[in-house]
């Protein structure tokens, strides 16, 4: 295929045929290039680099998962030990303690005066 053939076609022939000829000429004008001598060593270097980075990532991920599991187990153990020691929240005890602490505040309720009014 020469330039002349596809150029002649552009002169008014079938455009589709001209495009086909041009693309075939392009295929002939662009042969498969030869790889350089560094192609394979460079490829293997990239493969090893990718493997190394994925290994580091997986190690970091494993370390994070292990830390999260350890923290969960530790928290579960702490919760279990605190429930066994009998320390629990008792609402009534808290209110009694609060009332005892504020007895003086409760005194001026002046019950007598209310009873006086009732009388």
């Amino acid at each position, binding site marked *: 295929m020469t*330039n*002349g053939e596809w150029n002649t076609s*552009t002169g008014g022939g079938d455009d589709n045929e001209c495009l086909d000829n041009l*693309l075939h000429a392009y*295929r002939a*004008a662009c042969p498969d290039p*030869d790889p*350089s001598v560094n192609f394979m060593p460079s490829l*293997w270097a990239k493969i090893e680099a990718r493997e190394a980075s994925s290994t580091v990532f997986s190690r970091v991920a494993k370390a994070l998962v292990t830390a999260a599991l350890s923290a969960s187990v530790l928290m579960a153990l702490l919760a279990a030990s605190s429930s066994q020691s009998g320390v629990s929240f008792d609402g009534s005890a808290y209110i009694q303690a609060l009332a005892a602490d504020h007895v003086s505040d409760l005194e001026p309720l002046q019950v007598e005066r209310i009873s006086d009014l009732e009388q």
Partner: protein
Amino acid sequence: MLVEFELLQSAQRGDASAFNQVVTAYRRRILGTISRLIGRPEDVEDVAQEVFLRLYFSLDQLRTPEVFEPWLYRLTVNASYDYLRKSKRRPESRMSDLSEQQVLMADAAAGSKAQVEEGEKHRVRDMVQGLLASVSEEDRILLTLKEVEGLSLKELEKIYHVNENSLKVRLFRARQRVLKNMKGVTTERQDVASSGDGLQKV
């Protein structure tokens, strides 16, 4: 297929020598396809290495030998897309570097037949790359695979995972766009040629 399935299976099991043989068998073809897809000779090897890198890390997914080559082409197309998107540039259209008249004069000065032939090839490359650069990446890659690489519609079906009719429609539209641009270029060339100093070459 350029290699036996047993060789691929050995490569799947991690045999580096087998993988080397697979790469050696296909690399020239892949380099050629990439060079015609991206139009940047200086980056062809990098993109080809990316293709084989992806092949290496996904080879264990291969189950049947008949899908290997379409799959390798798919990796090639995807790596080329990625390259084109990353670089945000299209193949250089060198048609604008020299006017038609300058090219003709350079040809006339070149003299020898080999140089003239090389000049013809250069001009064909520039013209096609210029035409393909004026359409979308999708159109360019599809047309190149079909019309330049010579893949059949069946092979393209496996690569693109779309049915034959859809491919025909896409190809037809892509051709129409290229033809439209070609007419524009032809008109420009004729205008330049007619305005020259009688230097006419067909």
